[in-house]
């Protein structure tokens, strides 16, 4: 009797688990299919955008009127953006620097730079024509290989994830097929990803393009503003201690927290709630943070701004505060160099002032040390001439000369106009030498302060 009951109970349990298992398998299958569909969509879109990109490049090369050239060059840049987006969705086994991505970004960027120039009445040099042709030459085999992958996806059952995984994999014990294949160890030509990796490797071997645009160069390789001469670890400790003392942490006993490399590399020091970085070259504080508990506020933003000015003076900086952002217990200020009435925005120092007692709780002077140098200003048009270049009805509220950073680590000497137009407030930058428009920023008022977009 008892035995029969148990057999019956086990049979029911088995049937229930079987049903449950089957249902799970079905659901997993649906998810696999959804993923497969997404992957196919990304790859097909990628191939199709590449193909359109290639065609538009070819047309752009032959177009003769400026209007037609602008049209095709703009299409090149938008198609390359689209292709890049698709490419970023194709399954991968790890993310690294991608040469396919870099090639797409740079061709789009170069085309956009040229289109902007032609739109402004400029011309393309013979050298740039050649770069454009070279990019097209390089794109053709890329396009071919991606299309080939699509064909092989159908004819050779190329995988990213196996459509019919083995039992071991179904149970989640093994690695995904596409991963194993992309590893290069197991049948390298059998997956889409390994095909793309091969493409990447082939592009890596080719020389980089030399042009000036947003993505042509990346970071400042050599900081321009660091004082000369290297400091030792002991000397940097002295600098750290001195800095903390000046900021009102008299009992600071900094402990060594490691070294940092790179352009502004140096020594890291930690003391109670403080974190400091002292550069190897010049021995200056490039980054400082204090994470102490901040008591209820006693200061307003205006009072904190005065404190920030005092801190700047103590540290020996001659800067003007240009903006503030409120973070509740502290306020963040940006201060820049102003020389002969010209605001030099790239030479920036960021300070954080605690609202309980006005102490400095954060400092980031890395932009200043990266970009600061003695600048010479070219001859300029007069302010009146510049104002006349503005849009009619643009109501100017403030104006001054400024140096602003432009993409690709370039700087431009500009007239800065803060003004209103149809209920919106903007910052408009006109090139001080030519009067051409360099940049427009819209001013948004967020709960934490003004924001430029």
């Amino acid at each position, binding site marked *: 009797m008892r035995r029969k009951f148990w057999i019956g109970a086990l049979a029911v349990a088995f049937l229930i688990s079987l049903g449950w298992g089957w249902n799970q398998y079905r659901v997993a299958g649906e998810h696999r299919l959804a993923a497969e569909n997404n992957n196919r969509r990304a790859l097909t879109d990628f191939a199709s955008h590449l193909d359109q990109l290639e065609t538009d490049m070819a047309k752009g090369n032959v177009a003769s009127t400026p209007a037609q050239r602008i049209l095709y060059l703009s299409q090149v840049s938008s198609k390359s953006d689209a292709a890049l987006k698709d490419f970023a969705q194709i399954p991968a086994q790890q993310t690294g620097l991608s040469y396919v*991505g870099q090639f797409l970004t740079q061709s789009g960027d170069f085309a956009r730079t040229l289109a902007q120039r032609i739109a402004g009445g400029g011309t393309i040099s013979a050298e740039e024509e050649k770069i454009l042709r070279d990019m097209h030459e390089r794109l053709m085999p890329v396009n071919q290989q991606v299309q080939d992958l699509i064909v092989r996806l159908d004819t050779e059952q190329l995988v990213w994830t196996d459509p019919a995984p083995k039992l071991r994999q179904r149970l989640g014990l093994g690695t995904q097929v596409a991963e194993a294949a992309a590893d290069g160890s197991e049948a390298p030509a059998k997956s889409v990803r390994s095909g793309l990796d091969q493409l990447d490797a082939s592009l890596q071997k080719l020389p980089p393009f030399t042009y000036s645009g947003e993505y042509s160069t990346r970071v400042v390789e050599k900081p321009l503003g660091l004082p000369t001469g290297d400091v030792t670890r002991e000397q940097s400790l002295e600098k750290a201690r001195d800095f903390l003392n000046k900021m009102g942490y008299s009992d600071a006993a900094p402990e060594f927290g490691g070294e940092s490399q*790179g*352009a502004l590399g140096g020594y890291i020091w930690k003391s109670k709630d403080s974190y400091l970085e002292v550069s190897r070259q010049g021995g200056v504080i490039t980054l400082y943070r204090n994470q102490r508990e901040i008591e209820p506020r006693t200061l307003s933003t205006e009072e904190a701004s005065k404190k920030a000015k005092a801190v700047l003076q103590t540290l020996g900086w001659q800067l003007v505060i240009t903006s503030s952002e409120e973070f509740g*217990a502290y306020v963040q200020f940006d201060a820049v160099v102003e020389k002969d009435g010209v605001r030099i925005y790239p030479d920036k120092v*960021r300070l954080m002032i605690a609202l309980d007692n006005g102490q400095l709780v954060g400092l980031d002077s890395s932009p200043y040390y990266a970009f600061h140098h003695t600048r010479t200003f070219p001859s300029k048009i007069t302010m009146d001439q510049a104002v006349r270049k503005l849009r009619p009805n643009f109501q100017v509220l403030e104006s001054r000369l400024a140096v602003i950073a432009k993409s690709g680590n370039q700087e431009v000497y500009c007239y800065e106009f803060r003004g*209103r137009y149809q209920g919106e407030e903007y910052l408009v930058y006109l090139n001080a030498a030519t009067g051409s428009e360099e940049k427009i920023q819209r001013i948004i008022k967020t709960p934490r302060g003004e924001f430029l977009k």
Partner: protein
Amino acid sequence: MKVHARPWAMVVTIGLLLCVTLSGFAYAALGDRLLGRGSKGSEVTELQKKLVQLGYVVGKVDGKFGSKTEAAIRRFQKEHGLRVDGLAGTQTIKEVKRLTGQSTNASGKAVGYKNTDTNLLARAVNAEARGEPYVGQVAVAAVILNRIADPAFPKTIADIIYQPRAFSSVDDGQINLPPSASAIRAAQEAMNGSDPSGGAVFFFNPAKTSNKYIWSRPQIKQIGNHMFTK
């Protein structure tokens, strides 16, 4: 007697009191009354939603001012330089409302929160660098933004974060956890141009990673448990 001396004052006071209490029942709006442990109602729900939006854990948004909501209020007060009493009074509510308000253009027209990207960035920071020092959290946010500026990576925050195999927190779903207040602050700060990573485009935990590629990248610095590399 005082009451007889100024009967109108009594009437006005009672009237006012009645008005305030009755309006509290009828149209309970956040900021009308002091909220504290044990308060209930739609204002509490609104307060809880706003606290969640700002990255403070309140547990379930249920319209009941319990211990978790009180703890959240305390943390909010601490981090915003207010008197820490665990009560949502006029000042605290004003600050909560202000910080969750929409952005406006120059003539005061609302233009939305303007922070959709910051929110995703904050989620990534929360998922990847929870428990790391604050500087390290800003650095993680900066790495994602540095990738936008690097030609070899996708060009939007979402494309970078959701790029297959780019972040383990996307693969294990931690990216969908609500971001903490410090992750939100770190994301905002990085969006505003801070980069404590020194221009890094990768970061990893040296104690947990054996990936050869990531170890081969030129190292910049270690902050907390994360090594930041080119």
